[in-house]
């Protein structure tokens, strides 16, 4: 199934227009050397070529909640969104806390063939926060786990967190912390502030996130480990990460597209599509995470794609599940908030949505430069396109997008996974299952 492609007139990372030839899963020529001989020509005039996007934070829901998403549907959505690799979060049922379960998810991903699926291992058994899961077994498994997280739950016990940070050094792992002090957020429903006071919804104070991040960067410094902070959402969190980096601590941080765009004002209508963990914050926080992403304090954009069934969202606020879909809107939101505002270049986008997440997750062959000899994991984007988000038309099996009805810039025209087109002419290329270049 290996097709040869000539991507004509594309702008790699938004730079000068050139031609790129892809053959046998590899970039074989760039520029004048790139011939069209025997190749399918893709007209790339006006399009930006990026390294395939890598998501550090995806919920694929399988095993356990196949009614919301499967590895197959979630990875199709990922390809449609321009991704060539995703990290599948551990809060499945059963939990991804053993080598057996992470290998199952990894195999489901390999068989689906849309993107590289990198399972995230649970830090603690059953995400219970009580004792370490067999992290080494997951690292040595076929899934080659490098990112460990109890995402959705915080590793709040300081001793357990310390042990986890230390332990994963043996296999170059990283702990990705969901920073949420549990006692400060009991029953919490939304950001604690002016809006929560008015709506009578239990508040989720910024300090509940910031206190854990502050503790964890100091722990990481103390034991000399690297730390990754999931989805930071407050101005204070950005300040703490900025301070930690200045101090030389090996911390990386991510922000979600929704925290780059949406604020807690949206909760006023009690529409559970806006219910998410961490919660939508204030306009000042949105500005702070944008500034943090712009100046490099925040390293990556990760989707926290969290599909939920209709019944889990079609109800009163308190009964609704936390989370929103994001794989197919991530790049458009980043373009709208960061590129079109002049805060990031396309090369920066390649860094925050591909190169750095691949490096944090130690994903081989992903997030590489667009250069001869590199694996052809590529995404072709039309920045001039504008599209209105229609969740029912997305590839994800769930419709809980906060951007429904919103017009966003940019569209993925093509995605290549090791030289095989998973998206072409803006449409998913269905191929026999298990076929990989």
């Amino acid at each position: 199934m290996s097709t040869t492609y000539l991507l004509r007139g594309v702008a790699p990372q938004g730079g000068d227009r050139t031609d790129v030839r892809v053959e046998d899963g590899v970039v074989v020529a760039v520029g004048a050397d790139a011939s069209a001989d025997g190749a399918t020509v893709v007209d790339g005039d006006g399009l930006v070529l990026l390294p395939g996007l890598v998501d550090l934070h995806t919920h694929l829901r399988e095993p356990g909640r196949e009614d919301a998403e499967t590895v197959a549907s979630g990875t199709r959505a990922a390809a449609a969104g321009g991704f060539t690799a995703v990290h599948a979060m551990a809060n499945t049922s059963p939990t991804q806390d053993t080598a057996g379960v992470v290998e199952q998810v990894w195999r489901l991903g390999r068989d689906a063939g849309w993107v590289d699926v990198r399972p995230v291992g649970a830090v603690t058994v059953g995400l219970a926060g009580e004792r370490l899961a067999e992290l080494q077994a997951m690292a040595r498994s076929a899934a080659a786990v490098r990112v460990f997280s109890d995402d959705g739950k915080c590793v709040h016990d300081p001793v357990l967190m310390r042990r986890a940070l230390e332990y994963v050094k043996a296999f170059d792992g990283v702990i990705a912390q969901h920073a949420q002090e549990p006692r400060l957020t009991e029953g919490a429903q939304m950001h604690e502030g002016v809006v929560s006071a008015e709506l009578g919804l239990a508040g989720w104070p910024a300090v509940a996130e910031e206190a854990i991040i502050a503790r964890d960067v100091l722990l990481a410094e103390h034991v000399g480990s690297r730390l990754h902070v999931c989805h930071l959402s407050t101005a204070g969190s950005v300040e703490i990460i900025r301070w930690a980096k200045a101090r030389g601590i090996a911390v990386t941080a991510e922000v979600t597209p929704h925290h780059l765009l949406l604020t807690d004002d949206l909760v006023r209508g009690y529409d559970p599509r806006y219910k998410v963990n961490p919660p939508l914050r204030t306009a000042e926080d949105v500005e702070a995470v944008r500034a943090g992403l712009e100046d490099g304090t925040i390293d990556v954009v990760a989707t926290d794609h969290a599909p939920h069934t209709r019944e889990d969202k079609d109800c009163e606020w308190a009964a609704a599940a936390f989370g929103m879909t994001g794989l197919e809107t991530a790049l458009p939101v980043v373009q709208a908030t960061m590129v079109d505002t002049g805060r990031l270049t396309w090369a920066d986008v390649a860094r925050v949505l591909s190169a750095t997440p691949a490096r944090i997750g130690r994903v081989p062959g992903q997030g590489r430069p667009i250069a001869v000899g590199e694996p052809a994991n590529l995404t072709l984007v039309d920045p001039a396109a504008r599209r209105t988000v229609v969740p029912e038309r997305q590839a994800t099996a769930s419709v809980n997008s906060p951007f429904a009805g919103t017009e966003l810039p940019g569209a993925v025209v093509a995605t290549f996974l090791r030289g095989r087109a998973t998206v072409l002419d803006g449409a998913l290329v269905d191929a026999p299952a298990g076929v990989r270049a």
Partner: protein
Amino acid sequence: MRHLLSAGDLTRDEAVLVLDTAAQMAATQGREIKKLPTLRGRTVVNLFFEDSTRTRISFETAAKRLSADVINFSAKGSSVSKGESLKDTALTLQAMGADAVVVRHPASGAPHTLAHAGWTHGAVVNAGDGTHQHPTQALLDAFTLRRHLVGDGGRADATGRDLAGAHVAIVGDVLHSRVARSNVQLLHTLGARVTLVAPPTLVPVGAHAWTADVSYDLDETLATGPDAVMMLRVQRERMSSAGGGFFPSPLEYTRAYGLDGRRLAVLPDHAVVMHPGPMNRGLEISADAADSPRAVIVEQVANGVAVRMAVLYLLLAAGEPRTAPAAGSGRDEARTGVRTDETRVHA
């Protein structure tokens, strides 16, 4: 006015219209035959997902006095407990042709969801949602305040008037109180000044944006001579660590924030004492205060029926010009129109 979800949704003129209408309703309730034919053939559903005998009975009485058919649906304790059930229950009621749904729900925003999710076409009246809003309570409180504080203490006609210049202290568990949230908004809309009095643990973060002053000292506030003191119910379990540990002990709370005979004596002669009920005698209010001549707590209950009659009337029976008064000079005629109409109907 299509629904009544939040006291904040009411303009000054709409709120005064409800109070004026309630006054007419109250006037009819002194008669031997209290029942009016206004809502004959209409169906009002009391949908209660949370126990509240007094609020349910108040709405039930109001609807029946207007000749509506009343269905009481208590979802508490049944298998119905979560989201989908609200939707299915609403769809069921819609299929049965409910003209108005009076909803009490433990989740903040549930009436808003009910009104806007397209599950029911009837008017939705919020009878208390979580720690969010209880607009008819605020309206009956305003009605009670107007009777005592406006128009020479009830001796002159207060029709058309608001609460401009009145100072109301709201004391107690503001954090968990939908009554406080509704009253802060409505009293401000009506021109009154509000001081919230509570220990700092029971004032929500973000309350600085409210149209009210905040005080941590009850004695200091009482010394300023408020026209009314509204005591809020404080649940004893709030002091336990499982309940949030908001104050050290009931005794300490009572000492600092309870209304007793000594504090009552500080108030100006005309000041009234209010409580939305049910009271915790001996905790937030002593028997001396609750049973004193200044206490208008029982009157609040009676006024609740009149105010809820007015709300149901305005939502279900009044015509467009009267329910949504246009800005400008047309307002007074609109209000007068209602009165005339009421007088004609009920004479």
